[in-house]
Each structure stands twice: as C-alpha cells, then as structure tokens.
C-alpha cells in the first residue's frame, strides 16, 4: 500500500472518486431507512418495499467493495493460488452466472462453437472467472435491449495460445475514450455512471488479471454497433502431450 503522505494527485483523486461512489448508494440506504425510522410511512407493504430497496442497494455496495478487495489482492500476487484450469469450463461457469441478467434484458447469447474439449491454462480460478464475468456483464449492461452477445474461441497451435472473443451489439466506446477503458475509475463517456453499482474498476481489473496470467487483451469498438473484446492466454500442454515431446 502507498503511504498516505506519498500519494500522488492521481491517487488522491481516485480515492476521492471512490469515496463518492461508495457514499452515494450508502446515503440512499440511509434515506430509505430514515423514512421508516422517522415515521413517514406506516403501511406495512410500503415499509417492506423500502426495506427491500435498501437491501438491494446495500448489495450493490458489497459488489463495489469486492472489486476493491480484489484489486488490493491483485497488488499482492503471492496470495494468488495457481492451478491448471480448462478455460472452456470457466467460460461455461461465467456464462451460467450471467445468463439470468441477459434473459432479463432479452439479450441472446450465441456460441459460435460448442464449449467442449480441453484448453488448459495455468491460472487462478477466481480471478479468471472474474475476467469473463466482467466482460460478459459489460456486454449485457452496455448492450441494447434484445441485443446479442457472440462468444467464440480459437487455439493458435504455433503460439500455443487460446483466444476467447466476446462481441456485443451495444452502445460501443467512442474512439477518444478507447485509451481510457482500462484505466482505474474510468468509464467511457457513453457508459452511465454507477450502472448496477460499478466503481469503474472492472476493465482495469480485467487487464491486470490477464497480464498477471501472461496474456493479452484487445478491444475493438464502433459507437452504436458494438464492442469486441479478445482475451488471449498461454496454453499449458496436457501431460500426455508433454510426455510425447
């Protein structure tokens, strides 16, 4: 961690933004509970509704705090447990977590090829899952209603890498914002503030995780058409293949 007196202006600004983004939903929780607490509402159904809203809001705060925790955990890489993982299984798991949100917005997900087989990488399960969760959730959040998400993967046997491509039919990222998308706390100009409780840590986290796994991430986007993100990771040869060498 950076000592407080060694913080740069950028660090200070980032902290101030983070404090604001956490304080706004927390204030809303207090507002909702105050209304009940100070006797402004007596109807039980209404009280239940307000408590439900407060709970949901508090849950978005948990998501934000998880982002911060992950970010700090990433800063200390020795804490990462590495194992051999099938990237296709992680994609499947991530897809099943995202599907209800896609269904909710009428967004269809198309797999260009079936997620069967074994493409192994060495990595941390939680963080790689986080990578695809973030990308797929962005593809849902910033898509248009009844839009589409296309998922594809390909193996480069020469470079011994796997590339996973996720495309959406969403709002896209303006050219002038492309260099900002991976920066901490930055959202594209098209992206609404605080959508579903986001601190703007998402894609900077994704990039950090991919780089920690010796991989690469590329983004191509056209405003009003959509965004395509390609994640490339080095493959680990299966034991039997290694024995053959």
């Amino acid at each position, binding site marked *: 961690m950076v000592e407080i007196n060694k913080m740069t202006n950028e660090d200070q600004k980032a902290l*101030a933004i983070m*404090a*604001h983004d956490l*304080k*706004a*939903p*927390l*204030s*809303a929780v*207090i*507002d*909702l509970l*105050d*209304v009940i607490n*100070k006797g*402004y*509402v007596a109807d039980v159904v*209404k009280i239940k509704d*307000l408590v439900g*809203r*407060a709970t949901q*809001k508090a849950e978005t705060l948990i998501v934000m705090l998880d982002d911060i925790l992950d970010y700090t955990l990433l800063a200390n890489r020795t804490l990462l447990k590495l194992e051999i993982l099938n990237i296709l299984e992680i994609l499947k798991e991530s897809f099943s977590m995202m599907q209800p949100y896609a269904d909710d917005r009428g967004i269809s997900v198309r797999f260009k090829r079936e997620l069967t087989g074994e493409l192994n990488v060495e990595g941390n399960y939680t963080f790689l899952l986080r990578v695809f969760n973030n990308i797929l959730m962005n593809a849902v959040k910033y898509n248009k209603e009844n839009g589409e998400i296309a998922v594809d993967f390909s193996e480069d046997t020469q470079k011994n890498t796997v590339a996973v491509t996720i495309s959406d039919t969403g709002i896209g990222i303006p050219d002038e914002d492309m260099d900002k998308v991976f920066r901490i706390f930055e959202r594209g100009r098209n992206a*609404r*503030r*605080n959508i579903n409780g986001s601190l703007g840590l998402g894609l900077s986290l994704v990039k950090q995780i991919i780089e920690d796994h010796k991989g690469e991430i590329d983004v191509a986007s056209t405003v009003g058409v959509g965004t395509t993100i390609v994640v490339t990771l080095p493959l680990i040869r299966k034991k039997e293949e290694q024995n053959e060498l």
Partner: protein
Amino acid sequence: MSFKILVVDDDIDVLESRKIVLEHNNYDVETATNIVVAEEILNKEKIDLILLDVMMEKDSDGFVFAQNVKSNEKFKDIPIILATAVNQRTKFRFDIEEDGDFLPVEKFMEKPIDPDDLIVTIRGLLK
C-alpha cells in the same frame, strides 16, 4: 394551494424516499431521473422549489441544470437545493459562502439528507 417541488436524482430509491417525506408534509412532488426530463417538467408545471442532485449521468449535470434555471428569466427565482454526496470536509466541498457566485443556488445539503432537516430547509426557502 400546496407548493410543488421538483426532485431531480438519477437514483430512483432516493426519489422514492424524498417523495414520501415531501408528500407526508403536503407538498406536491414531481420527479425526474435526468436533467432532460427535469427541463420538460419545468416548462410544463409551475414549480416552486427544485431539489437537485449534483452528479447524475454526467458528473456536472446538476451544475448545468442549476445554471440553466438561474440564467432563465422565467425560472431564476425558483429556489434550488443542491444535494451532493461529496464530503464537506474535503477540499471538494461546496459552500454557499465560497461557491455561491459560481453556483447560484440557495442551499447545499450533504447526502444523506435528514428528512426533518430537509423539511425545515424547504419551509425556510418557501416562506
């Protein structure tokens, strides 16, 4: 006739809690989640006070809307309460003494806003 208050905030939960508190105190309430809708309401309804969030779709939306209202001959006398989650202890604070010329609003209130304080403030402005 009761006073009509326009509440502008992009958080529907904040709008809901403000609406309950204001209606409980016999104010009529109009709500808007962005400044475009807020402007439409302002042009259609007779608004007596605006309770305005600072950061909405863009960080400066609240400021822009406040400036528009105060530079319009027809609306400039409508009192505005600017609600902000920015911490008053930081240098990013807003203060009516220091920032009043820059931001021509009647009152700043820091979120979360105590409902009883809000009503006292509104009564003071709508005398």
